[in-house]
C-alpha cells in the first residue's frame, strides 16, 4: 500500500529524470457505497491527524475524511504556526506536552518535512506580578517535563538586541522561555497527515460538504453530504470554526462562540529573529518564517462572526504592540492580513468528547490554540473514537464540564469567550 518514500536521493533522482515519478501526495477518493467504520467530518489538521492515528495506532483504516472544500483550508491553513506546551493548568499541560512530543517526531513518523522548528518561544515579563505568575507557570511546565527557562533582563537584551528593553511605558524585566517551542510549516502538517493517512488506506474526500446527520433513536448512522448519503459506524466531527453550524445539524448546542482572529505577515526580510516572542503588556506575538516574513498576531476582534475577515482597530492595536517592543519593525511592511474563525469556548479550553447522540463525537472549541494541538488532538480523538474512552491527557476536555463546574480557565476570565 505504501508508496513513494521521500528522501534526498529520491529528490535527486527525480531532478535528473524530469520529476515524472512524483505521485499524488494523497489519493483523492469518492465515497464508498457501503460506508465506513468511522467518518471524520472536517479535513483540517485535526481531522486528518485523527484519521492518521486511527489507522496507525488502532488499525482502523476503513475511514473517510470528508472535507467541504480543500483539505487544510481551515485554521491549519491560516494561523501563526506556533507550537508550544507552556500551559498552566493540569487539565491542559500534559495534553499539550504530548502534542509537543508528537511534533518532535512528526517528520520521521510521516516521512514528510513539515519544518518543525524548535527555535524557542519567549514570553516577555514587564511587572513583578507578571513575573510571579510566570514562575507559577514555569513550575507547572517543569513538573510536566515540558522544560522552560527563566531569562533575566540582561540576557534578554544580549540575545535580542532589537527589543526595546527600556520601553518607557512597559520596560522588559525578564522573560520565560520554552526552548522546545517554535514554529511549523502549517500547510505541510495537513498535507503530511493526509499523505500518511491516505497511505494507510484512509479515503480523503474533498468538496464533500456534510449537510446533515442520519440520526435514528438517538444514534448516528451516517451523514448526508453534497455527494450523497454515507453510512458510518461512528462519526467524529472535527470542524473547529464551524462547530456551531455543523453540530446544529445534529440538534446539539455548544458552549462555544465563533470569533475571528486576525494574523499578519510582512514582506520577506533577511533574518531578524530566530524565535517566537510574545509581548506581555500588549497584544503582539511574532516569529519569522523561513521565507523571511515576520508573522505576527494579537487579540481577537471580539465580536461573534463567521466572516473570515477582521477590522482595523485590531490591526492597529497589534501593530502598536509590535512598535512597543521592537520599534525597528516600523519600516517592515505588512503584506497580508487574514482572519480565521475560532471556536471560542467558555473557558478557553477545548472539547474531545462523545455527545448526547450515540456514535456521534465532537472535537472542537480550540480557541486560537488549535494549531499547536493538532497532533495530540488527532491522537486523543482517535483514541476516543477507537475505544470510546477518553485518552488520559484529554480526560478533562468533556462537554459537560461546565454543568459540573470543572472549568479549565487558564486566563481566569470566566464564561466570556472573547476574553480567552
Amino acid at each position: 500500500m505504501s508508496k513513494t518514500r521521500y528522501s534526498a536521493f529520491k529528490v535527486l533522482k527525480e531532478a535528473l529524470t524530469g520529476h515524472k515519478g512524483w505521485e499524488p501526495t494523497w489519493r483523492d477518493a469518492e465515497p464508498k457505497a457501503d460506508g465506513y467504520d468511522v467518518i471524520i467530518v472536517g479535513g483540517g489538521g485535526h481531522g486528518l491527524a485523527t484519521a492518521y492515528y486511527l489507522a496507525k495506532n488502532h488499525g482502523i483504516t476503513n475511514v473517510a475524511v470528508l472535507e467541504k472544500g480543500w483539505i487544510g483550508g481551515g485554521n491549519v491553513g491560516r494561523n501563526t504556526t506556533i507550537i508550544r506546551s507552556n500551559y498552566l493548568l493540569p487539565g491542559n499541560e500534559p495534553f499539550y506536552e504530548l502534542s509537543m512530543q508528537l511534533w518532535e517526531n512528526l517528520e520521521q513518523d510521516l516521512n514528510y518535512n513539515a519544518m518543525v522548528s524548535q527555535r524557542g518561544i519567549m514570553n516577555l515579563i514587564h511587572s513583578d506580578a507578571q513575573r510571579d505568575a510566570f514562575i507559577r507557570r514555569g513550575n507547572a511546565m517543569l513538573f510536566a517535563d515540558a522544560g522552560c527557562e527563566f531569562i533575566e533582563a540582561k540576557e534578554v537584551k544580549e540575545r535580542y538586541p532589537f527589543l526595546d528593553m527600556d520601553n518607557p511605558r512597559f520596560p522588559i524585566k525578564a522573560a520565560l522561555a520554552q526552548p522546545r517551542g517554535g514554529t511549523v510549516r502549517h500547510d505541510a502538517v495537513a498535507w503530511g497527515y493526509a499523505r500518511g493517512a491516505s497511505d494507510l488506506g484512509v479515503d480523503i474526500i474533498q468538496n464533500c460538504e456534510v449537510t446533515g446527520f442520519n440520526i435514528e433513536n438517538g444514534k448516528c448512522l451516517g451523514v448526508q453530504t453534497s455527494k450523497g448519503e454515507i453510512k458510518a459506524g461512528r462519526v467524529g466531527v472535527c470542524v473547529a470554526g464551524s462547530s456551531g453550524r455543523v453540530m446544529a445539524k445534529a440538534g446539539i448546542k455548544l458552549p462555544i462562540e465563533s470569533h475571528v482572529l486576525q494574523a499578519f505577515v510582512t514582506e520577506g526580510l533577511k533574518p531578524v529573529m530566530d524565535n517566537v516572542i510574545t509581548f506581555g503588556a500588549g497584544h503582539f506575538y511574532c516569529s519569522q518564517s523561513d521565507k523571511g516574513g515576520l508573522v505576527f498576531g494579537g487579540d481577537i476582534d471580539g465580536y461573534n462572526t463567521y466572516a473570515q475577515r477582521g477590522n482595523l482597530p485590531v490591526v492597529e492595536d497589534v501593530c502598536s504592540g509590535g512598535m512597543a517592543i521592537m520599534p525597528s519593525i516600523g519600516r517592515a511592511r505588512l503584506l497580508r492580513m487574514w482572519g480565521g474563525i475560532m471556536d471560542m469556548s467558555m473557558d478557553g479550553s477545548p472539547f474531545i468528547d462523545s455527545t448526547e447522540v450515540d456514535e456521534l463525537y465532537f472535537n472542537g472549541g480550540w480557541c486560537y490554540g488549535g494549531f499547536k494541538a493538532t497532533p495530540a488532538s488527532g491522537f486523543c480523538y482517535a483514541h476516543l473514537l477507537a475505544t470510546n474512552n477518553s485518552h488520559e491527557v484529554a480526560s478533562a476536555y468533556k462537554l459537560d464540564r461546565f454543568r459540573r463546574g470543572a472549568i479549565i480557565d487558564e486566563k481566569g476570565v470566566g464564561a466570556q469567550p472573547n476574553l480567552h
Partner: protein
Amino acid sequence: MSQTNRKDGGLINKDKTLTFTFNGQILRGYEGDTLASALLANNKHLVGRSFKYHRPRGIVTVGSEEPNAIMEIGSGAYKEPNTRATVTQLYNGLEANSQNHRGPLGFDLMAITDFFSPMLGAGFYYKTFMWPKAFWEKIYEPAIRNSAGLGTLAKEPDPDTYDKGFRYCDILIIGAGASGLSAALTAASSGAKVILADEDFIMGGRLNSETTKIDGTPGSEWAKNAVDKLSAMDNVTLMADTTIFGVYDHGIYGALENRSSESRANSNKPRQVNWRIYAKRSILCAGAIERSIAFGNNDRPGIMLAGSVRSYMNRFAVATGQKVSVYTNNDDGWQTAKDLRTKGVKVVAVIDSRSISPVMGIQGAEIFMGTDVVDTKGRRRLKSIKLSNGKTIDTDSLAVSGGWNPNLHLTCHHRGIPIWNESIASFVPDDKAPPGMSVAGRAKGTMVLNDAIKEAHDLGATVASELGFKPKDLKAASTPVVAYNIVANWGVPSGKNRAWVDFQNDVTAKDVKLANQEGFKSVEHVKRYTTLGMATDQGKTANVLGIGIMAENMGQSMQETGTTIFRPPYNPVAVGAFAGRRRGMEFYPTRYTPSHKWSEEQGAVFVEVGMWYRSQWFPQPGETHWRQSVDREVIQTRSSVGICDVTTLGKIDIKGSDVSEFLNKVYVNAFAKLPVGKTRYGLMLREDGMAMDDGTTARLSEDHFVMTTTTANAVSVYRHLQFCHQVLWPDLDVHMISVTEQYAQYAVAGPNSRKLLEKIVDSKHDISNEGFPFMAAAEISVCGGIPARLFRISFSGELAYEIAVPTRYGDSLMRAMMEAGEEFNVVPYGTEALGVMRIEKGHAAGPELNGQTSAYDLGMGGMVSGKKDFIGYKLGLREELQRSDRMQMVGFKPVNKSDLVDKGFSMAGSHLLDLRDKPTTENDQGWISSSIYSPMLGCYIGLGFIKNGLNRKGEFVRAVDLVRGSDIEVEICSPHFYDPEGGRLRV
C-alpha cells in the same frame, strides 16, 4: 553620467535634474521621474535578484504591481527594504541599493542555486532535510533562512513618525484615471462630498502614459484640467499618492498617504499618514493590470510588460532599449510598438500569438502572426529572442502583453468571487463587492476607453442621485473607439527551458504542473505548495497566468479553477503606519494620581499599574536596596503612621431608593441592612461563581452609597454593574457614576493615624473611636471647609482610615497631612509596603482574585449568603466547585526562617508538594500566589492555594520553585500572620 535612453517629451521636468545613487553609482534623473524610470533612462535594467534562484532581474512594470525591482532605499535607521522602484518618486540624494545577493549584483554568489534548480522545484523541501533529525534547526533551516528573505530590516528603531487621520465623505472614488476622473466630475457636480484617491503621485492614471486624445486634447492634459476643476470645488478632496489598501465594514476604507521624502526634508513631518475614510458609497475605478506570458526564459532583464514599456516612453520619455520587440496576444500590445515607433525608437519585431491579420503596420518592424516567443538569451540583459518558427531576433527590449486583468482586488475584500469573462480573457468583479461599492471602467472589465469613461461618468451621477444629491447634466468626455481583442495565451511548452509565472518567488510553469501532478489541484493548494502569488506583489501580474496554466493542465475552465482569496492590504503598508503615534510612552494612556508631583519631589520610584503610575517606594538617603525602603515604610507605619495614595481604586457613586437591593444582587454577602454611616466589605462574583472583585461600600445617606473596587478591576466592575442594572434589573431605582477620577483618596494607617487626622479634619467632626468606630463612614470637611469623605477601613491591619477629597485638593491634602504628621514621624508608603502589610494580614488581592478562585477557595465561604439570589450564587454551588479537595487559600511560612533570605526571591510562583513527593503534575498540591519578606515576622511569608488547605493548617509541605532553584519546607498556617485577632484595628 548621461541618460542614454532619455528621449524628448514626457511629463518630467527637464529643468530640474535630480541626483541619486544606485549601488553607490551616482546617477541623474529629472523631477517627475520614479526611481525605475531614472534607472532605465540610465540604461540600468539589471536591478535585482530573484528570491530562490537568484536570477538576474530587471524592471518589469511601471506600477505597484512590480515583482522584480524591489530594493533598499536609504541607509542606517532610515533604510527601507523591499521598496518598489516603480512607485518611488525620485528625489535629490535618494540612495538605492539592490538586495538579496551576495557579492556584487552582477556576480551574485548565490546564483549557484540556479544551477541546482532541477532539485529545488515546488515543494522540494517537504521531501528532504529530514535526516538526521537534529539537523533541521541547526543546519538546514539557518541555511535556508539566510538565503531566503529579501531586503534587510534596519536594526535601529524606526526614526520616522506616522500620523493617523480620519476623513468623511459621501462618495469615495478609488483611482483617478479616465474613469475615476469622469466619475468624480459628475458625482462632485451634485454637491456631494467627494474624495478622489490615487496611488500615483500625479493623477490621471494611464492617461499620463498614453497618446490617447480625449475631447480632442491629449489625455494627460485632459486629466490635468479635470483635476484642476475638481480641486477648485469645495466639496472635493483630492488625495494623490494615497493607496486605498483595504475595505472594512460599514464603509470604512483604509488609505495610506505617502509623503514624499523631499517634502519632508529637514522637518519632523510624518513619513506617511494612515487615513481611515468613512464613505457612504464608493466607486472603484482602479483600472487594469497587465499580465505576462509564460515562455522560456521570460525573466531576463529587458523583458517587460508592454503597457509599462509604453509608459516609460510616453510619460517618462525613456526608451527601454535600442532595438525593441513586442510579443502580444491582444490588440493593445500593438499600441506599444506604434508609440515607440512614433517617438523614433527602433521596433524590430511584433510577434502576435493570434492567427489573424496584423492589427496595424509598424514601420521597420518584422511582423509575425500566429507566432510565439519560445526562448531568450542574455544573462544580465536581453540579447535575443527565439520564435516558434525557429527564427532568432536580436533585441535588447521585449515588450510582452498577455492581456489586461481588471484590478478588482478591493471588490473581493468582503469575499466577492471574481467571474471569468471569456471575451476579454480575464476575471471581472462579481456582484458581491463590499456594500456601498460600485465599479466602473476597466476595473469592471470595460476595456474600451470610450465606454469606460461613459460608464464611470454615468455611475458618478447615479451614485450621487441615490444619496439624494442632484448631479448636473454634464456631457461625458469622448475618445476614439479603439477595439480590444484578445485570445488567451498562458504560454508555450518550451522544452527544457523554464518559463516563469511568478517572477519574484521563482515559480515556473513546471512548478505549477508538478503541484497538479502531486495532487495539489485547488488553486489554494497550488498557491501554498508553489508559493505562487505569495511574494511582495501578491501575484498581481502572476496569478491569472498561473490559473491559466493550471486550468490547461487539468483540462478545466478558468471559472472552475477560480482565484485565490484577495485580502488586504492592496499594497503592503508599513507596520509603523498602522501603529501611528502609539509607540514609546504613547503606546498606552498614562494616568497619574494627584500626589504624583509630590511623590516625584520625594524621589519616589514609580511602577506601572495598568494605565496608572503609582509610587512603589520612597527611597531615603543611605538606602541601597529596595527592601530597606519597604521594610522601613512598613515598620514606621505599624509603629506610628503612614500615608499611601490609593486614588487608583475604583470609586463609584450610587444613588437611588433601590441601591441596597441592588447591592444585595451583586455582592455575595448581605447589604440590605447596611446602616447609614457604615462601610461594609463586599465580595463580588462572576455569574460562574468565581470571585471577580472585592472592595467596600459605604452608605453615606439613606439613598447615597459609595463603592470602592480594586485598581485593576475599576473599569470592568463598573461595566458589570451597569449591565446588572440596565440589562438585568432595569427598573430598580439605581443611578451610578464612576468617580475614580473625581476623588483623590489616601490611606492613613497606623496607631497615630487618628491623631494625624484630628489635625486635618475640621473639629466639628468627632472622629474618636467612639464617635467614629471601625467601619464608620461619613461626609466631612477638612482643612477649614474642604468637602471630604472619611472611611474607617483598613487594608494594613492597623487603626486606619481612607480619606477622599475632590481631586483638585489631592496634592494639597497630601502636603497638609505630611506636615501635620511630622510630629508623629509620618512616612509615605508605596505599593510594595502596601502589599507587604496586606499579605501579613492575609487579605486576598490580584494574585488571589485571579479569576480561577471561588469565594470558598478564598476562605470566604462563610460570607456567602444562602438566603438571596446574587450574581454567581447558583453556579457557585456546582459539585466540582464545592469539592473539599479544591485548592483553598491559606498562609505558608518557612520552617527555617532564614530560607530564601539570601536568594533574593520569594516563594511566589512555587508549587506545593508533599514532603517526599517528586515534582510531577500528578503530585502537584497547589501553589504560592503572593509572597514577601515580612519585617514584622522576620521571614518570608506567603499566601497560596493548596488542596483542602482549610483543613490542613499545621501540616508541613514543600514549596518548590524549579525555575529559580529552591525547595523549602513550609508550614501551612492561617493567612492572618499579623495581629490575627484584629485588635489593632479597633483601638
